[in-house]
């Protein structure tokens, strides 16, 4: 796959992969290429003509007021929305160079992992929680599991805190630890992409900081797309930020650009706290 140009980031429908076009920044190959995406809940249109590219091994954040469609877009990227009755997708999404909808949904979700807003550990032991995804795959041998659980917990910066209580219930650890456990669980199957839907909105600032540190650690392993209401968080963790309003992608650019010198007036108003 060919690198692409920053100016093409929000213009997936006419991306020209210019090989010899001199640009200031060569982006790696696109992880997701979303073109003319419309999304409907019944008759309500939640996403209107979205075009964007999510670059590989970068952190992209979606910001915007509640109900602007950012979570809907995130859940479309691993086809979680398919499980909600009455939803409809138009347009195309590519994962790498393949059509997202050509995969079986269950295989796609092993490549595109997801962490939800509310920590949702299974009522099992800490070890079993991380091993859950591994056990779903018959190709993973039983004796590998313990190693991969440890590796994954280390990546999620949780190993030192839980190594002595791996076989205790996951409901007994703090909310922040539970959320890192959920990240460990998602990382255990070694996904290419990790989608995070407001992962810190239920956590205190210290737990939030730990999760942000963790995102820095894992961003060389996988592409990260994060939805957040916290603009400071977007500024801290994201390489690129997309601003959504009423189902439209208003502006997508480098994080610095969005927060310091946005091109669009609505973006300017939102990031400076004048509305939303």
């Amino acid at each position, binding site marked *: 796959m060919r690198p692409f140009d920053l100016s093409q980031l929000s213009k997936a429908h006419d991306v020209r992969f210019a090989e010899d076009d001199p640009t200031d920044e060569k982006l790696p190959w696109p992880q997701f290429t979303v073109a003319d995406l419309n999304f409907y809940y019944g008759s309500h249109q939640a996403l209107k003509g979205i075009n964007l590219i999510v670059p590989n091994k970068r952190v992209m954040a979606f910001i915007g007021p509640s109900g602007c469609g950012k979570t809907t877009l995130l859940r479309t990227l691993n086809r979680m929305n398919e499980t909600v009755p009455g939803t409809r997708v138009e347009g195309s999404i590519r994962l790498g160079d393949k059509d997202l909808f050509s995969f079986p949904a269950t295989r796609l979700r092993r490549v595109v992992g997801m962490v939800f807003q*509310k920590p949702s550990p299974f009522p099992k032991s800490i070890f079993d929680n991380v091993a859950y995804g591994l056990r779903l795959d018959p190709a993973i041998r039983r004796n590998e599991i313990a190693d991969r659980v440890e590796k994954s917990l280390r990546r999620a910066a949780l190993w030192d805190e839980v190594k002595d209580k791996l076989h205790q219930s996951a409901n007994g650890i703090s909310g922040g630890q539970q959320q890192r456990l959920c990240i460990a669980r998602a990382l255990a199957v070694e996904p290419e992409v990790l989608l995070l839907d407001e992962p810190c909105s239920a956590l205190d600032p210290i737990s939030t900081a730990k999760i942000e540190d963790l995102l820095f650690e894992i961003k060389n392993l996988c592409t990260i797309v994060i939805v957040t209401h916290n603009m400071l968080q977007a500024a801290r963790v994201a390489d690129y930020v997309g601003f959504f309003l009423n189902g439209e992608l208003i502006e997508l650019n480098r994080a610095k650009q969005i927060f310091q010198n946005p091109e669009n007036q609505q973006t300017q108003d939102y990031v400076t706290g004048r509305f939303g």
Partner: protein
Amino acid sequence: MANAVLATPEAPFESRGLDKKQTLWERLRKGDEVAHLITLAGGWSILVITVLLVQHLWVFSRLSRHAFGWHFLVDSTWDPVNGHFGAWPFVYGTVVTSLLALAISIPIGIGSAIFLAELAPRKLSNGLTFLIELLAAVPSVIYGLIGIFLLIPFLFDVVPYFQRFFGWIPIFNGTFYGVSYFSASIVLSIMVVPFIISISREVLIAVPVSQREAMMALGATKWDVTWRAVVPYARQGIMGSIFLSLARALGETMAVTMVIGNVAQVSTSLMAPGYTIAAVIANEFTEATGDLYLHALIELGLVLFVVTMIFNALARLLMLTMKGHEVVG
């Protein structure tokens, strides 16, 4: 609003009436104490009723207890004419029919509940659940009639074939008269399956979406989500529905007595007729002549009470150990 009770120099607390003692009427009107009393009375009444029940059973079974002692439990002779009473055939019949009924109804009940909660369209599910709950409200004598007029003729056609192949197994051999432990178990299982379905369905539906989605996001199939996330999460509620069914099966009287044959004997074969505790009390209580006979029947009631208690205790123990396993991993 916020400063309504703040004391100011112009309006100190005393003048707001906060230091005044409330009258009884004011306190009652607030509702807290009334609710407290009502719930307390409710709680105590359960305890009082249970204690009175046991006390009554204990006192009015004394002749039988004194005459037979512990031997009553293991004696299989039930001979009212000669005044010799033993509870074993009834205990055996009660336990065997109830457990067999559960063995039949648990897979059907949980399977149906999973279908209704996870697979069926919501409208169909609600419609079917309404019908199932209606089944739970059918009087047990009706189930007894169904047993006599539908089930037993059907079993008469089927069982001989079955016995031709499996008759060598002790639990299936012997002559089949229609009325049997097996017939009673089937009728019981039909009676308790609505409980298992409707309660299990409720708890399955109540499993949070977050659990399902977390599982799905790991690449789980629909079946994985149901079997590895939803059912384990709902397990306690499902177990609860099974215990309730067990209690109902142990105590069921009318339907069982109509199809079990009412013969006070102990047979290894499920195809043989038998008797249960509840059935013998209902059948013989009005014709019990003599105090010893009456006291023996009441002692049977006491035994049924204890058997039910033991099963409940075992069930709770099972639940606790399962919880332990889950955490140990």
